[in-house]
């Protein structure tokens, strides 16, 4: 724990970036190496301010690029330290090569990814293009829907990432601006309680253990590369969910806030539902409640964990639903959306008769309005009434010009 304690009020007014910064501070990170970028800038900026004001015992490294920032995290992690960074969009794109290094080398790193669109055209606002870019990188990917959850998820990310059975890096996602720059009341933990939860960093195969010299970052060819990738996939598929669930359960005991691999809202008796990520989950919940008042049994499924993908849990949650909408906030650029595909995969080979349709929305920070969601739920209900999908399987919503619909 950092020597200097910060006295926090029970509820602080924090935006998502400050929530990240405070979680970093309370976890007593050894090295934060970063190259700040909008909208995640303030995560690092606030942390550097804490450092300048004497609240941080660890190091803050300003690097020459995001590629270097993640490289420094991998190096410091291999040396045997708790490490973290933050980025968005183009910065994440530049980091991507090193993301695969971090996960393949099994270095625990916490990356706060404040989701933002990818150029071109250049855009600083929130969508999930960068999040989607990370999905095959071997990282664990967790999503927050608001600043409170950003604080909780970033804190828990350390615990999950560093577990000796896991040793995989974790991305703590939040929506750019909608979460990162929206200040809300955030229930805090004391420095003592937060550090007690995350725990002391336990190095494994650290390069600074001179009694046990190790080589990190080796070359493997066709003779044993496959075995290493297989092990990483196996650990993602079998070891991560149990540790996430333990972390969620311990966190609930500490804070009273309960989290799940998938977050169900009014799903038990729902006829229609939307599946989405980030702040859209909260908007959809509000609209779903309104739909119920109008006789449409609407529900919302928000994904708390994106990687590993909760395949079985999603199939179970959706098995009784009659019409499902998969909402993708990233252009699939020539395919069905990621969520559409994942959900279709989870439901295929089951007995479900669910009608699944996909929607692409909100690119570059375009608002997803309650009017959009109201129309969407009505469309789902029309599908239920007709007993088939009455629209093309993929539609764009909220975009100007002639209607875009495919498949």
């Amino acid at each position, binding site marked *: 724990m950092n020597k200097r304690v910060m006295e926090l009020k029970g509820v602080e007014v924090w935006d998502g970036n400050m929530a990240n910064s405070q979680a970093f501070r309370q976890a007593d990170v050894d090295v934060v190496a970063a190259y700040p970028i909008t909208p995640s800038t303030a995560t690092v900026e606030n942390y550097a301010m804490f450092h300048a004001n004497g609240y941080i015992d660890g190091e803050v490294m300003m690097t020459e690029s995001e590629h270097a920032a993640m490289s420094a995290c991998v190096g410091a992690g291999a040396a045997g330290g708790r490490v973290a960074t933050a980025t968005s969009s183009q910065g994440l794109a530049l980091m991507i090569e090193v993301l695969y290094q971090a996960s*393949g080398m099994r*270095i625990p790193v916490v990356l706060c990814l404040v989701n933002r669109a990818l150029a071109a055209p250049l855009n600083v606002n929130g969508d999930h293009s960068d999040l989607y870019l990370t999905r095959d990188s071997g990282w664990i990917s967790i999503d927050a829907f608001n600043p409170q959850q950003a604080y909780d998820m970033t804190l828990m990310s350390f615990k999950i990432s560093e577990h000796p059975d896991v040793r995989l890096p974790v991305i703590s996602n939040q929506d750019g601006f909608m979460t990162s720059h929206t200040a809300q009341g955030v229930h805090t933990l004391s420095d003592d309680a937060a550090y007690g939860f995350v725990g002391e960093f336990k190095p494994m195969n650290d390069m600074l253990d001179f*009694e046990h010299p190790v080589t990190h970052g080796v070359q493997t060819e066709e003779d*044993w590369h496959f075995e290493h990738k297989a*092990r990483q996939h196996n*650990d993602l598929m079998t070891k991560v969910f149990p540790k996430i669930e333990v972390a969620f359960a311990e966190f609930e005991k500490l804070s009273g806030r309960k989290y799940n691999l998938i977050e169900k809202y009014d799903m038990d008796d729902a006829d229609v539902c939307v599946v989405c990520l980030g702040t859209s989950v909260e908007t959809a919940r509000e609209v779903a409640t309104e739909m119920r008042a109008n006789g449409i049994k609407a529900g919302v499924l928000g994904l708390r964990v994106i990687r590993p993908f909760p395949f079985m849990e999603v199939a179970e949650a959706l098995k009784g639903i009659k019409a499902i909408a998969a909402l993708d906030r990233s252009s699939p650029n020539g395919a069905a959306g990621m969520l559409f595909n994942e959900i279709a995969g989870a439901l295929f080979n089951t007995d479900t008769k669910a009608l699944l349709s996909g929607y692409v929305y909100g690119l570059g920070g375009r608002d997803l309005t309650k009017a959009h969601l109201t129309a969407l739920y009505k469309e789902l209900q029309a599908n239920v009434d007709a007993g088939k999908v009455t629209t093309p399987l993929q539609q764009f919503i909220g975009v100007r010009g002639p209607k875009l619909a495919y498949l």
Partner: protein
Amino acid sequence: MNKPISEMGWDELAPGAVLYTFDGDINYNIADIQPEDRMYSETSSKGMSVGDWRVIKPVWNSETCIDCQNCWIFCPDTSIIARNKEMKGVDYEHCKGCGLCVSVCPTNPKSLLMFNEYETVENALANWPAKKKKGE
């Protein structure tokens, strides 16, 4: 890890492709022990031959060598074998044929020269160039 990597299944390998250099704890000064006497582990790259990456090889001529240690200092792969400041030869299991040792050799003629990989050492030594005269 007492098995060669080529025999290990995915569940036997250390996560992250981490390789342990030595067996046991190193609670002594490793520099006091010559490489041939160290307890390198099965997975240490010491036991990995990378000589076949090379297409040309350095050949050492002990007749002209003055044991200056330049090649030993400059070799990027610690493939010059020297003991008690005397040159002993080249580690052909780890040398990748970069030729740096030849370029830093100060003798006339040079005591290390690059030859085709298929050339025998005997043949190479038999064809060693003569001392160059001033201005040659």
